[in-house]
C-alpha cells in the first residue's frame, strides 16, 4: 500500500455503558484512532449475529461490540446473552477464514473513557498489522 492502510471498524456500543464511555472520552478530550464508526444499540444483547456477518461481508476490517461489565447490564443480563452469541460468532467467523482479532467483545463501563481509547487503539494497531480483511471469504457468509 502506498500511504498507510486505514482499517475500518464497525462498532456496536450499548446505549448505557460503552456509548456513554465513548461520550466521556469525548468530553475528556481523550484522543484515539479515527478508524471506528459507532452504531448505537440499546443493549449489547440486541447485536444480531447477522449484523456482524453483514458488516464483514460489506467490507468491515473489524467488528467491535461494547457492553456493560458482567453484572452491570442496564437490562440485567443482556450482556451475558451477547457473550454467548459472541462465542458462537467467533467459531463461525474463523470458519469463514476471518482472523479472530477482527471480532472483539469488550466490557466498558460509562466511567471508562480511557478504556475506549485503549481498546480502539489496540484493535486498530492489530488490524493494521493484519492488513485488509479477505472479503471473498466474508461474502461466502
Amino acid at each position: 500500500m502506498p500511504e498507510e492502510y486505514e482499517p475500518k471498524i464497525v462498532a456496536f456500543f450499548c446505549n448505557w455503558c460503552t456509548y456513554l464511555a465513548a461520550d466521556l472520552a469525548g468530553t475528556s478530550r481523550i484522543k484515539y484512532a479515527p478508524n471506528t464508526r459507532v452504531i448505537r444499540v440499546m443493549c449489547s444483547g440486541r447485536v444480531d449475529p447477522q449484523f456482524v456477518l453483514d458488516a464483514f461481508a460489506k467490507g468491515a476490517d473489524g467488528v467491535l461490540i461494547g457492553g456493560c461489565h458482567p453484572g452491570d447490564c442496564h437490562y440485567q443480563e443482556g450482556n451475558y446473552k451477547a457473550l454467548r452469541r459472541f462465542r458462537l460468532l467467533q467459531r463461525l467467523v474463523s470458519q469463514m477464514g476471518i482472523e479472530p482479532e477482527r471480532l472483539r467483545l469488550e466490557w466498558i463501563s460509562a466511567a471508562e473513557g480511557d478504556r475506549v481509547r485503549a481498546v480502539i487503539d489496540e484493535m486498530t494497531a492489530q488490524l493494521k498489522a493484519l492488513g485488509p480483511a479477505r472479503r471473498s471469504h466474508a461474502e461466502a457468509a
Partner: protein
Amino acid sequence: MSEMNGTVRIGVYVCHCGTNIAGIVDVKALTHYAAGLPNVAVARDYKYMCSDPGQDLIRQDIRDQHLNRIVVASCSPHLHEATFRNATRAGGLNPFFVQMVNIREHDSWVHTNHAEATLKAIDMVRAAVRRVAYHEALEKGRVSIRPEALVVGGGIAGIHAALTMANAGKHVYLVEREPTIGGHMAQFDKTFPTLDCSACILTPKMSAVKNHPNITLWTYSDVTAIEGYVGNYNVTVTRRPRYVREDLCVGCLECLEACVYKQAKVPDEFNMGLSKRRPIYIPFPQAVPQTPVIDPETCIQFKSGKCKKTCIEVCGDRHAIDLYMQPRTEHIEVGTVVLATGFQTYDARRSPYYGYGHYPNVYTALEIERLVNASGPTGGEVVLRTGGHPKSVGIIHCVGSRDENTNRWCSRVCCMYSLKLAHLLKEHTGAEIFNFYIDMRTPGKGFEEFYQKLLSEHVHFIRGRVAEVTDASLHSSEEGQLVIRVEDTLAGFVRRIPVDMVVLATGLEPRADAQEVRRLFNITCSNEGFFLERHPKLAPVQTFTEGIFLAGCCQGPKDIPDTVAQAGAAAAEALALMDAGYMETEPNTAYVVEESCSGCKTCISVCPYHAISFLDERQVSAINPVLCKGCGTCVAACPSATIRQHLFEDEQIFEEIEGILEYA
C-alpha cells in the same frame, strides 16, 4: 414493519458547535457531501443547531421544503436528541423521523487530523441518511408514577430530601442503616464557616422527620431488594431487630441505667471509640428515634443467657424490651427513589508514616469533632489519650486525598474543616496550632474570610506535605513529643516541629459497599467509586436509571450547604415526576409479527422482564409493551426474525452498517 413510505425528503443539518466541531471537521465539505446523497432535499450547516434559530431552520424547512426526515449531525443524542425531536414535532412532523449523528463526542473531540475526522463524519452522516429513510412515525408510551418515594440514607441529605417531598404531600419511606438518623453531621461539633452548632441546626430537622405524618421512618434497616421500573418500584426493606420495640418504648432510657454493666465497656461508635457504652444504648442524647438498641455481640443475656435482665425489670409493664424480636421484612411500592447513602472517611492506618494507631496522640479529624464537643466523651475538654492538655497541635491536610497511592481526588471539605478545628482547638486549649497544607482551598461563601480570620488568630500555615510523624527526637527540645518533619516549601527548608497532638484531616471516600448498592439500584459508579450522575452539568442529580436520584456525598465529596442544595434538587426532580403522575417512555419496545412467528418460545426464555407471554390459542408469542424495556435481546434471539424493535429495526441497522461501509 417499516418500509419506504412515499417519497423520502431528507434534511441534513450540520452543527459547528462554535469551533468544537468546525475546528476539526470540515463542516462545509461535510454539508456539501450530504447535499449530494440520495433522498437529501436540503443540507445546511449552522453555528449552533441547538439554538432557537438553529431549530427554526428545521421547522422552516419541514414546511417550505416538505421534508419528512431529519438528520442532525452535532453532539451526543444523550444531550440533544430531545431538543431536535421537539423541533421536528414543532415543524409538524412526527418526532421519530429524526436521526442524530454524534460528530462531536465521537469525532471532533477525540481526533486531531482534520481529513480523517471529516472522513469519519462523512461516513456517519451517510449511514444516518440511509437509516433515517427507514424511520417511521411512532408514539411515546406512558408509565404511571406512584406518588410514594423512597429515601435511602438518613444523613442530612436524606433528611432534607425526605422532608421536602413530605411537605409537598408525598408519602416518603426513609430507610437508615444505623439505629438513628443524623449521619455524619450529628457527629460534628460546629459547622464552617459560620461556627453554628451542628447538632442545634440538625436535631430540629431530625425530630421533624420523626413527627411528619407523611414520613415512615425505618432505622436499623436495609433495602435488600428492588424490582420494577420508574414509577412502579417494588422495594423490600429488612428491619434488623433492635430488641426494644419502638411502638412501646417511651424513651425514658431507664433501661440504660438499669443494665447490669455498671461500667460501660464497649467502645462507643458514635464517639469514635473515645468513650464506652453499655450493651443497651442510645447512640447520642438527641437520637431519633429515642429508642435504645441492644447489641447482641456484647449483651450477657445473648452471650450466656445468664443475665438478671434488669433492663426488662425496670421497663416494667411497658414491655418494650423484647429479646426474642426477629428481623422484619417490609414490602413497599414507590414511584421514585432518592439515594443519600453518604460517604466514609479514609482509614488513616493506610498512611503508616503518620503513625495513626501507633502513636496514641495522633487523631483523626472526626475524633477531634467529638473531643471538642460539649456533649462528647470529655464534655468538650481536650484531653490527650496520654493525659494532659496539648500545648501545640499539628493539623495535617490531604491525608488520603490528592494522592495517587491512596485516593487521587480532592475531598473538598478538609481545608475548611481543618481551619474550623484549628480555631476550635485554639479556643479550647490556647495551644499553638500548625496547619500543614499542599494548597489552601477556600472557594465558598465566607470561606476566604474565615481563612483570613484564622491567619489573624496567629494559627501557623506551613505549605508542605508532611513527610512523617515520629517520636524519634534529634534534640533534647523534642524529647517526649511527636515530631512533624516537613519541607516548608515557602521558606524553602526542611523543618522539624515537635507537637503534643497530631490531627489527620482524612479525606472522604465512597462507602465500602457502594458497589453492591449500585448493583442493587442498577446505576453506575464513576472511576473513584462515587455514584455517577447522568450529566455532570445538566443532570447532576439524575442517574441513568429513570426515577432514581442522587443526593449528598454518595455522588462525590461536598460540604453541608451543597449537600442540602443537592438534596433539594433531587427531591424537586422526584416531585416533578410524581406530580406529573406519568412519564413518557421511548417507543423502542419490541413487537411480534404474528404471521411469521413459529412459536418456538426462545424469546420467552431470554426476556429479563417476563414481558413476553405465549398465546396458546394462536400458538404465537405476544409482548406486553408496558413491561418491555426495549433492550432488544429477544429481537436478536428470534430464529425466525419475527420479533422486531421500534427505533432499532433490522433494516435501519443494516442500512447504518452498509452506509458506514459504502465508500463514496
